[in-house]
């Protein structure tokens, strides 16, 4: 079968549970994020080249691949750390612009975040974002709305992002996130 012509039907395979760990170097304030299948992040500060890493947070999460039922093409999404539903924001942000444009047509914008530091790590390609978007839209039954997945690169200021993250940061903590 010609894979380029296949009208892919994606399914989620090879799901792996683990933790998204965020660390900060207290010397240069650089932040790094990575996926680990080990529950316990390094407790003590450790040195890696010129950086001194300290754990900031760890959230339970999953990694997965998408595979086409028809042509068996398998795409890994190891570059994806989390999806965030954009809800409201400053006007200058391109993602919010997209959201405002889409609202009337019920297009909901999700931002796919990669792992930090963004410039040093492989990030999701536009093609992969498209596949992910197709997968979720196909999975959805609703005809009234659809979703759009965009890269974190469109965000104006990540630190002020107030969207809804699909990650499980607070499961282990005894404080229910509702009260945060």
């Amino acid at each position, binding site marked *: 079968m010609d894979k380029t012509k296949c009208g892919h039907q994606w399914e989620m395979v090879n799901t792996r*549970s683990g933790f998204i760990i965020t660390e900060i170097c207290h010397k240069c304030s650089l932040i790094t994020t990575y996926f680990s299948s080990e529950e316990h992040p390094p407790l003590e500060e450790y040195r890696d080249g010129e950086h001194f890493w300290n754990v900031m947070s760890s959230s339970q999460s999953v990694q997965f691949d998408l595979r086409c039922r028809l042509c068996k093409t398998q795409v890994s999404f190891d570059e994806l750390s989390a999806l965030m539903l954009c809800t409201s924001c400053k006007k200058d942000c391109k993602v919010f612009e997209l959201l405002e444009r889409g609202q009337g047509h019920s297009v909901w914008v999700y931002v796919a975040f990669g792992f930090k530091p963004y410039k040093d790590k492989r990030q999701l390609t536009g093609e992969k974002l498209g596949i992910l978007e197709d997968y979720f839209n196909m999975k959805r039954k609703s005809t009234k709305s659809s979703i759009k997945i965009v890269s974190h690169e469109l965000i104006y200021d990540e630190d002020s992002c107030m969207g809804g993250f699909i990650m499980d940061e607070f*499961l*282990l*903590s*005894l404080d*229910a996130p509702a009260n945060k």
Partner: protein
Amino acid sequence: MPVTAKYIVEVKRIQEILNAKTWVSNISDSDYITGIYASDLMSDVLAYGKPGSMLLTGLYSVQAIISAYMAEFRGVAFIRNKTPEEETLKFAREKGMFVLSTASDMYDACIKLAGLETVIPEEAPEAEKIHKSDNLTTYTFKIDGNDFASAGMVSTRVKAILKSIGYEPEIIRRAAISIYEAEMNVVMHARKAEVTLTASDKEIYIIVIDEGKGIGDIDLAMQEGYSTATEEQRALGFGAGMGLPNIKKNADKLDINSVVDVGTRIEITFHIK
């Protein structure tokens, strides 16, 4: 009609029904659990889980077993064939808990186990409802008769708890005064007593049950200035005969039951507005 579920199931039945793999057993054939709590959120396990239950969870962190232990659960069953970590198993072995895993997902596991539930309809008296609700916390304290040196300790601790919960200062003040007076009564007139504080979003409820000489005439004891304190006690500034009247003045509800030469039971209630 209020319905309470009675759930008593042998652990080996659970194993069979869920077709579960046993990682740590620590259980005899006749061991049973009295409830099932299905959750991935450990804060709720601690807040609402009932002792004797089993935790059904998809959270495979070691926190799961620790939270189950804190909530006095008998064991944990992991769903979706999760392989528990060695640390979890070690903890379970040390604390005498069981660890199972099943291929079912949460809904599947729940409905299989739900069939075992014996549902007994039960008329719950209105008064007991609040004490059966999840929104309360209970503390017990002991008081020794004649221990003037420690008098006031219970009141201080109760006050600290009420403050942490965040009740209005006014109600805390009234509760503190009432408990202090009740405490003094025990110290002066009884051998020992147990104080139980139940705090909820609807009321603060305090029971003081003492073993002692009891109150012969409650109406008389409720009169300001009436006192059976000894001369020595009065010389020290105690026993002005204001104890019970003062509680009545401060409490929203006061119930006294007493049997001479056996003891007294005082129930003090404060309503939260």
